[in-house]
């Protein structure tokens, strides 16, 4: 039974059966310095930005709940601070999308280099 389950885990997942070769290559890449450098840089970028943004977003309901006079103040004409502040979120979300796309291009380049290097190694075997 346990044997069956293990097999399903391998075959029923996303790796096709008999992909032992690909598995070895992936394991090799996982150990390489180039891959580790890539993921370290990527994680140091994506996690702080995401966590920071979630925290920033949660300020909005808190202000709406606990700073009602501030949120109701008019800043320009009949536009309230609350509305203007809410608009900032759209700006920040779009700006972060732009920043991500820019930064991800450098990750793409590194990933391509890693893939090409691994293929060269494979051909030499």
């Amino acid at each position, binding site marked *: 039974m346990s044997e*069956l*389950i293990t*097999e*399903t*885990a391998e*075959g*029923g*997942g*996303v*790796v096709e059966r008999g*992909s032992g070769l690909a*598995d070895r*290559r*992936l*394991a090799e*890449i*996982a150990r390489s310095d180039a*891959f580790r450098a*890539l*993921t370290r840089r990527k994680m140091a970028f*994506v*996690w702080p*930005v*995401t966590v920071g*943004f*979630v925290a920033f*977003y*949660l300020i*909005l*309901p*808190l202000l*709406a*709940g*606990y700073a*009602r006079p501030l*949120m*109701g103040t008019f800043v*320009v*004409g*009949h*536009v*309230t601070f*609350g*509305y203007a502040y*809410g*608009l900032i*979120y*759209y700006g920040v*979300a*779009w700006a*972060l*999308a732009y920043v*991500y*796309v820019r930064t*991800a291009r450098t*990750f793409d380049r590194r*990933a391509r280099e*890693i*893939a090409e290097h*691994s293929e060269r190694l494979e051909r030499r075997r």
Partner: protein
Amino acid sequence: MGIQLFGIVLFLVIVFLTMYITYWAARRVKGTSEFYAAGRALTGWQNGLAIAGDYLSAASFLGIAGLVALNGYDGFMYAVGWLMGYVVVLYLVAEPFRNSGKFTLADVLSYRLQAVPTRLAAAVVTLTVSVFYMVAQMVGAGSIIQLLVGIPYEWAVVIIGVLMVVYVVFGGMLATSWVQIVKAVLLMTGTILIVFLVGLQFGFNPSNLFAAVAERQGVEFLQPGKLYKNPIDLFSLGIALILGTAGLPHILIRFYTVPTAQEARKSVVWAMALIGIFYLLITFVGFGAMVLVGPEAIRAADKGGNMAAPLLAEYLGGGPGTVGGELFMATIAAISFATIVAVVAGLVLAASGAFAHDIYTNVIKRGQVDEKKQFVVARYTALTVGAVSIAIGILAKGQNVAYLVALAFAVAASANLPAILFSLYWKRFNTAGAVTGMIVGAATAVTLVMIGPSVMGKDALFPLANPGIVSVPVGFLTSFLVTLLTPAEKDKEAKFDELYVRANTGIGAEQ
């Protein structure tokens, strides 16, 4: 009479257009890859439009316009939250998800965890989330179509149900994607047109519109506090919205329809542009309806405010009884109808994948099913899911189910998101942590809603309508602590390394 005819013609145009798409797609859907993932051949912008079409439900279009029209600022703040979750999707989930899975959410988790228990848990949570979402859509759809076109509730549910079943069973993800793309274009066009006409009245200056709001309805409609009396409840909803999007199965499976992680990235950016513009505009639809139609007239048509956008269209077209007014209202009604069918079709696909691909193919049959059989089972499952949804939709007539969408987001954030993030990023994570985290996270969210004010009213045992503030930390902590308290799966650590390489480089990903 001629006007009613025009409304019927518009409905038929949408039905014929989507049926033609389905016919076109049906000849191309030859197996599970096309059925679940549109052959992974959509481009970034196509998938971006489809994500917007999948995400922007009637609750967004008619519901939020109504919330703003009746409550002012609080409705606007509610609208802000719906875009923000996509930052989490873009930064942490979309690309690794595209690179790691095949058809379902469970594919990603079971890659590095023990397949059978993880697939079962993920499939159950996917079904739960999709069914909650679906019931909310069906019940909303039934009453909205009844209001808009005057056909009985039951017939509205059956028509929508039969259409979505036909799209999915014959055209799979390919037809569903294009129905969603068409719907996104129609919805954006309709919304832009309404806002343009509102803008004409107010010199395209939001300040003039707000001034009219303050003058006619009172300045308190520009300030928070009309709708949400309890700040903690609002905060709790915010947590579910920003973290739930990245755990919604019907949105996540859309990333399998593109060929590479780069296209998945582009599709999120397109979706963020469209969804953001939509939510920015929908608040003007709401404020426009508040000023030009008036809350009393909107409430008289529907207590929940769902008629705000159609009534505004009627006013902008020339007013009740005029040809222009009736035509514009019929157009908005037809767009709402397209909106509903596109969303429910996406939900049927997500639910079918969880049952046919996860439970049947990989748990019951342990992966020992040939491609042809899998394809047949997938379509029968879609048929069954559709039939069950129609039945639930009819049974739930008259129930207040608006809270089910918020609950779906809360379950997605509390059960799916911890499992997804830990699977993709944490080597030590194990099966026990994933399974208990998913079950406890989902159960906490559901239980708190059942004992909360949405279901129990004034005698609620739990004071908040939104469970996120409790259930999200409970889901994450359970996954985390159970993992640390149970042994590491040494034999699976190599699989994590592989997954980590695939997720972050795309090497070895499904083509």
